[in-house]
């Protein structure tokens, strides 16, 4: 699994200060994709050392780490998410797939977004979006997609 870039973001995971890891080699190829560059084989290998380095740099300042993509290797996303959890930081995963993979474990994640990007239905803040964002708490998944809409005006 490769990482193309990272950033500190505020809108992708509601209420959290998030270190977003933008993963490349995306297999989904959604038409109208907002970051087509992430379909390419670019960036550096996101291994334990790389992740630990990033946590070292930003771990004590953020409340959440979000894996943006990674559908090529969902098992690796789960494994690295556990590593983030071990550092006492919440985890989120933006998957572009409609269905969660077999290796998905609720306890590895605090937030998960599912659904491909469909141009006619729009992204998360769009009322017609097909995408869904869930908060995972005590083994239960709550749909929090609506929280992306409230502030826009």
């Amino acid at each position, binding site marked *: 699994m490769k990482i193309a870039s990272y950033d500190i*973001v505020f809108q992708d995971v509601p209420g959290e200060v998030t270190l977003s890891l933008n993963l490349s080699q995306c297999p989904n190829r959604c038409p109208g994709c907002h970051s087509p560059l992430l379909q390419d084989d670019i960036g550096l290998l996101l291994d334990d050392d790389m992740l630990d380095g990033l946590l070292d740099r930003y771990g004590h300042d953020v409340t959440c780490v979000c894996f943006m993509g990674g559908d090529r290797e969902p098992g690796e996303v789960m494994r690295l998410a556990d590593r983030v959890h071990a550092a006492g930081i919440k985890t989120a995963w933006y998957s572009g797939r409609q269905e969660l993979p077999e290796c998905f474990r609720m306890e590895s994640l605090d937030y998960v977004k599912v659904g491909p990007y469909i141009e006619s239905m729009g992204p998360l803040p769009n009322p017609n979006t097909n995408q869904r964002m869930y908060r995972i708490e005590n083994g239960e998944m709550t749909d929090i997609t609506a929280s992306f809409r409230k502030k826009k005006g």
Partner: protein
Amino acid sequence: METYIVKRDGKHEVFTIDKIKAAISKSFLASGAFATEEVMTGILSHLNIQSGISVEEIQNQVEVALMAEGYYQVAKTYMLYRNRHAEDRETKSKLEFLMGYCQAANAAEGSKFDANANVENKNIATLIGELPKKGFIRLNRRLLCDRIRTMFGKEVADKYISLLHQHFIYKNDETNLANYCASITMYPWLLGGTKSIGGNATQPTNLKAFCGGFINMVFMVSSMLSGACATPEFLMYMNYFIEKEYGEDYYKRADEIVDLSIKKRSIDKVITDYFQQVVYSINQPTGARNFQSVFWNISYYDRYYFESLFGEFRFPDGEKPHWESLSWLQKRFMKWFNQERLRCVLTFPVETMALLTENGDVKDKEYGDFTAEMYAEGHSFFTYISDNADSLSSCCRLRNAITDNGFSYTLGAGGVSTGSKSVLTINLNRCVQYAQRMGIPYQNYIEEVVDLMHKVQLAYNENLKELQSKGMLPLFDSGYINIGRQYLTIGVNGLVESAEFLGIEISDNPRYTEYVQTVLGIIEKLNKHYHSKGVMFNCEMIPAENVGVKNAKWDKEDGYVVPRDCYNSYFYKVEDSTLNVIDRFRLHGVKYIEHLTGGSALHCNLEEHLSKAQYRQLLRVAAQEGCNYFTFNIPNTICNECGNIDKRYLKECPHCHSTNVDYLTRIIGYMKRVSNFSAARQVEAAKRYYATM
């Protein structure tokens, strides 16, 4: 080959002897004599005209020639004639400036000498303020140079002027005679009214008198300062008078109707009406300040800061200030002010929330949450954090160590009286590049310049003491300002640009850390070296509203490397989109600001407001990174068509859907329309990177 002379405007013109002859003839006639051809030839034979000579030089030669030939009376007439023309030229240049000012797009663009005027309008009053600025600059330089000469010798005085002219250093607020800015204690006012500073008001004895008198007092104090006036005790005193009027538990009965008029106002309404009176009055342009409004700052405190600063405080009647009611009033004022700003562009007061931190978080959780809530509601204010209530930021550009938290029955709370007497700023970009050109280590050259700056500041201090000894500074004499707690400030500009020139990457990396610590360390070392009884120095990264633009322009003209049109007021490149929000806090964190004893502010620019939980986390980030002074800057949108103000950054007015919108942003420390900035400043505002989310 033809001979050219250089005219006063720098243009070249073919030399002809006729003009000289005509001027000499006129002088003879004016002295009641006549120059024969022979006399004329005798005089002209003294002249030595070479191509490239200036008009002034030729005229100097004519004077000497007239005297050499023995025509002393004519020479005198000729000199008077020259002088009259020089005066005409000065008037003409003032007239040109006047016309130029009238035609400038806004007041900041029109101002030639000191554009950091918090002036929104451009009119006859602001023009009257502009005209004598050049005279003030000359007068201030002369006063200072005379003193430097007496104290340190002619060489140092000449070096000062030379460094000023070559823009290695910049004397801030040279267009004003008064000392710079101060955070005042209002205790002397509470004891004796404004009589001690030349007013006629007795001490306030009730809420109405307090609010009315406060406005007058702030105007009076501001007229004797060139910069900001901070009143960190404003709400505490107001709270005291509200309690006197409505009881110590007034805040628990805020809905109670206390007004017998047909308006039937509640306690809350009475209080907010007073807020309105004070805030709107102080935001008025002021006649005595050339239509500038006063620059007014206030502070809010968490419980721990309050206890540290005012734990021993007693009002003149022996009463203690009460935290519970003051806390309610602080919150009420913030909420009211945030809402009021939707109605009107209100620049002042600049507000600072002072929070004590512990173990990487805000200690007073209630105030941490409230601060985050106010940011989330779109309010724009500064936060100052410290893990020890040993310092306080009372102004957008001033952080001061509190040397004395004691209380006295004549001066009030010791901790709040502070300020900066004078700011002198070093242009680091030019210094570093010049040192490189000369082949000397930049550290040595910076040390040489900074050492001289300290001498200049000491001379300034002596002048101030002399003014005080003549009774010219009643603010000091009457105890509003304690001169012993006022700093002489070494300002820093062009730090990022100088590092860029040296090929250092502007990010949190060991090389940049070392560079910043080295440069600021030199200044701190000298600040300590020159410290003595009654003389304290501090160092601040000045907000480059005006100096940053000037330095960049001058440096560019002189062929130095200038990466942007306005030198940064931050430790990062303002337009750098690769630095994330946490990187920015880190670059204003403890490693970088350690030696900035006088402060710097992180203006964290965001495109959209965050949630309360996110702002709360950023308070933790600030505490963990040791970034002690910051604000969040989300441009507010103001519609040029319907006047609607929205706290968000929008391309279109949500009310009338016009796209003719302007933005309110905090560049200098206070909110102002972007279109009221001078042109170069607007460019910077447009380039500024707003972190997208």
